C-alpha cells in the first residue's frame, strides 16, 4: 500500500474506521489488528470500486465487513458460543477514552447485536437512512424503525449502567 493511497483515500475516513473497530473490539491490541486489516482490505479492494456509490460508503462497507468477519473468526477461535446480542468480555482499562460518558456509551453499544452496532454508529455519524441501508445491504424503510428500537435499547442499557 503506498503511503499516498493511505493519506488520500483512507486517512480522511480514519475516524469512522476507528469508531467502528472500537465497537467490535475490547482491547487495544485487537483494535489495532482490526484497524490494520480494514486498511489492508480497502487497499486490496480499491480496484473493485466501481463508483456506483461514494468512496466513503465503500470504505464504511469494507470496514464493517472486515470487523464482522474478524469477530466471527475470533468467536470460532475461542470455540464457544456467543449469542448475537451480548459480548461478555470486559474491555481493558487502557482501551478507554478520556471521556467517561463516551466509554459508557461504547460499553452499551458493545452489548448490542453486531448489525445493530453498525446501524447505530452510522446513524450517530449522521448517515441518511438510504446510506445506512446501502452499507448494511438492507431496505431503507426499515432503518428508521430499527434506529428507534436500538436507541430505546441503548437508553435502557445506559440507565442500567448509570444506576
Amino acid at each position, binding site marked *: *500500500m*503506498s*503511503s499516498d493511497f*493511505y493519506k488520500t483515500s483512507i*486517512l480522511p475516513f*480514519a*475516524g469512522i*474506521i*476507528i*469508531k467502528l473497530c472500537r465497537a467490535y473490539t475490547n482491547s487495544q491490541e485487537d*483494535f*489495532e489488528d482490526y*484497524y*490494520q*486489516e480494514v*486498511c*489492508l482490505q480497502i487497499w486490496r479492494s480499491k480496484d473493485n470500486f466501481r463508483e456506483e456509490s461514494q468512496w466513503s460508503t465503500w470504505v464504511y462497507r469494507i470496514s464493517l465487513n472486515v470487523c464482522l468477519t474478524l469477530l466471527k473468526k475470533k468467536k470460532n477461535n475461542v470455540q464457544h458460543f456467543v449469542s448475537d446480542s451480548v459480548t461478555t468480555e470486559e474491555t481493558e482499562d487502557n482501551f478507554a*477514552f*478520556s*471521556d467517561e*460518558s*463516551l466509554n*459508557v*456509551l461504547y460499553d452499551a453499544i458493545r452489548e448490542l447485536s453486531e448489525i445493530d452496532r453498525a446501524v447505530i454508529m452510522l446513524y*450517530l455519524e449522521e448517515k441518511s437512512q438510504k446510506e445506512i441501508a446501502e452499507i448494511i445491504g438492507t431496505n431503507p424503510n426499515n432503518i428508521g424503525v430499527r434506529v428507534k428500537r436500538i*436507541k430505546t435499547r*441503548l*437508553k435502557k442499557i*445506559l440507565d442500567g449502567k448509570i444506576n
Partner: protein
Amino acid sequence: MEKSIENIWKEGFLKSDALVAPKINNLYNQKSIHIIDKFKRMFKINLIAIVAFSFAFLIVSFLIGIPITGIIFFATLSVLVFINKQLLNDLEKIDLGISSYQYLKAFSQWINKQISINKKVSRFLYPIIFISMILGFWFKDAEGMPLGEKLVGEILVGFPDVYLIFGVPLIGIVIVLLILALLAFFGGRIYTWDLNIVYGRLFKKLEEMMTDIESLRN
C-alpha cells in the same frame, strides 16, 4: 442533566485523544507472512496430493496389470516429493523476525531456487513417466504373453519386412525416442506452465507487493 446519546457521541469525539489512528507500519509484515503462509500451505497440500496419488496409482497399476508403470511412477514421484520436502524445510528456516522486505526477498530467492531445481527434475520426470507407461503396457499380460510382443507379432503378419531391434520395430523405437526427447526438452516449460496454474495468482500478488514495497523504499 441527562445527555442524549447523540450528544455523548459528538462531544466525546471532540476530544483529541479519541480518534488517534494506530500506526500501520506492521501492515507489510502481516501481508507478507499471510502470503507466504498461504504458499506453504498450498505447497504442503500439493506434496501430500502427490504422495496420495502415487500410492493410489501403485495399487491401481497392480489391479489393471501394469505394475511396472505403477512402481516406476511411485519411485519417481517419491524422489520428487523427497526433493521438494527438503526445499520446504529450507523455506521453514527463513527468519520471521527480519523486515518484511527482507522476508519477501528471502522467499523470492527460495522460489527461484525451487523453480530452478524442479525445472531440472522435470526434464527427467516427464520422460520417465512416459517410458514407464510404455513399459507397463509392453509387459502387460495378454493371454499368456506380453502385450508388446503380441502386438509386434500382429504387425509382422501385416508388414513382414518391418526391421526389428531386440524384437522391437525400429519405427516404434524412433517414435518413442522422439517423444522422450521432446518431453526432456519441454519438461522445464511444462513444469512452469503447471506451476503457474497452481500458484500463478500467488506469485502475482507477491510480485505486486515486492514492487509496492520497493516503491516505498525509493
